[in-house]
């Protein structure tokens, strides 16, 4: 059947008159479908697609919030005190004064007389090589007395800032010789990385700081004068 539909103005007018109440619902539904297809669906797709990025950014935001909280709760005076103690324990550079003060203090406290000493200072201008994780100043010294005096001296020195380590210890009935390493390490370069987590001082760190605070820190004491054997004996007494 080859039926033809003749749409002329009269037909349209008749249809309009007959189905006028359907026009508003029809256009409303059509508009809603268009709005849904053109705006809502792409927006929803975009929203769900961006959720991975959003969760990553949210994690960064949490890190930042945590960093801010850590910084806000820290106290300037406490941080200063902790930096001072730790810098005295591990100085940022070759701290000759600190080393000599520590040796002199330990010798005075234990009554040991320091003999000749040999200081391996190294270059004063070059910064320590990166491969050398913990650079140190090496000092070799002779002590009067046997193992007990040497033991007392090293025990006091191990509780005196800056930190040192015994590399070699030789004991004879007439005296002892010790080779010590006094560590130093330049401060790390301060680089602000917004994504890096800022940790507060850990409990372990706090314990270490408390322990170091209990150590003797003769760095404020002026360098003692190099005195002769007789005077040294008197001062040791």
């Amino acid at each position, binding site marked *: 059947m080859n039926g033809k539909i003749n749409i002329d103005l009269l037909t349209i007018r008749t249809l309009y008159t007959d189905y006028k109440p359907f026009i508003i619902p029809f256009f409303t539904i059509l508009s809603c479908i268009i709005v849904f297809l053109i705006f809502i669906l792409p927006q929803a797709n975009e929203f769900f697609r961006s959720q991975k990025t*959003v969760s990553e950014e949210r994690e960064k935001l949490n890190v930042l919030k945590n960093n*801010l909280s850590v910084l806000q709760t820290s106290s300037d005076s406490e941080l200063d005190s902790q930096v001072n103690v730790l810098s005295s324990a591990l100085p940022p550079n070759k701290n000759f004064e600190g080393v000599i003060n520590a040796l002199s203090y330990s010798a005075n406290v234990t009554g040991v007389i320091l003999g000749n000493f040999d200081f391996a200072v190294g270059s004063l201008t070059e910064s320590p090589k990166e491969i050398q994780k913990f650079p140190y100043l090496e000092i070799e010294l002779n002590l009067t007395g046997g193992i007990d005096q040497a033991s007392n001296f090293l025990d006091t020195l191990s509780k005196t800032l800056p930190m040192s380590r015994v590399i070699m210890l030789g004991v004879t009935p007439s005296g002892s010789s010790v080779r010590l390493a006094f560590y130093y390490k330049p401060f790390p370069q301060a680089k602000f990385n917004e994504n890096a987590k800022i940790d507060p001082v*850990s409990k372990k760190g706090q314990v270490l700081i408390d322990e170091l605070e209990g150590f003797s820190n003769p760095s404020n004491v002026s360098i003692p004068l190099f005195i002769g054997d007789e005077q040294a004996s008197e001062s040791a007494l």
Partner: protein
Amino acid sequence: MNEINLVGTGPKKYNEKKLRLARIVSVIALFLTAISSVGLFLLNTRFSVASIKEEQTQIINQISSYNERMVKLSIINSRVLEIEQIKKQNIDYTKFIQTILDIAPTEVTVNSFEIEEKKATISISSPSLLPMSDFINELLKFADKNSKENPTISKATIESLSANDRTGNFFMTVNLEIP
């Protein structure tokens, strides 16, 4: 003069039920569109990357005012780690020497004791070989106690044993290895 149409409008061409259904569907569509639009708008405002970035910028600005504290904390944390590492390397040489001297019999004279890194050398003398033998036995007993938690001696070697007929003393040098 007003015209009065005397012919009625006739029966309706559409179904009332279908009209009601169309109206209901249109209202529902309108409602859903409005709800989803507003919902998406709120979700995009609340959970969009841009809003989070904005919040991040605000916090970064706040953090930058604590720059000094940040540097100090960084120094403290790195120093704590470094000092702990240095402390781990430390060996209490005096305690070790004292322990070895304590196990030496009284008849034995310690002429020298040198300890460097993980090696120790002890030179002793005695008028008799018996106390020297006792000393070696004590060293071996001490080495038997060696464990991961309590390192003592991993190796003991007699480097030399000699006698001096003038003084009548025996001399012995022992090398020790600390684990």
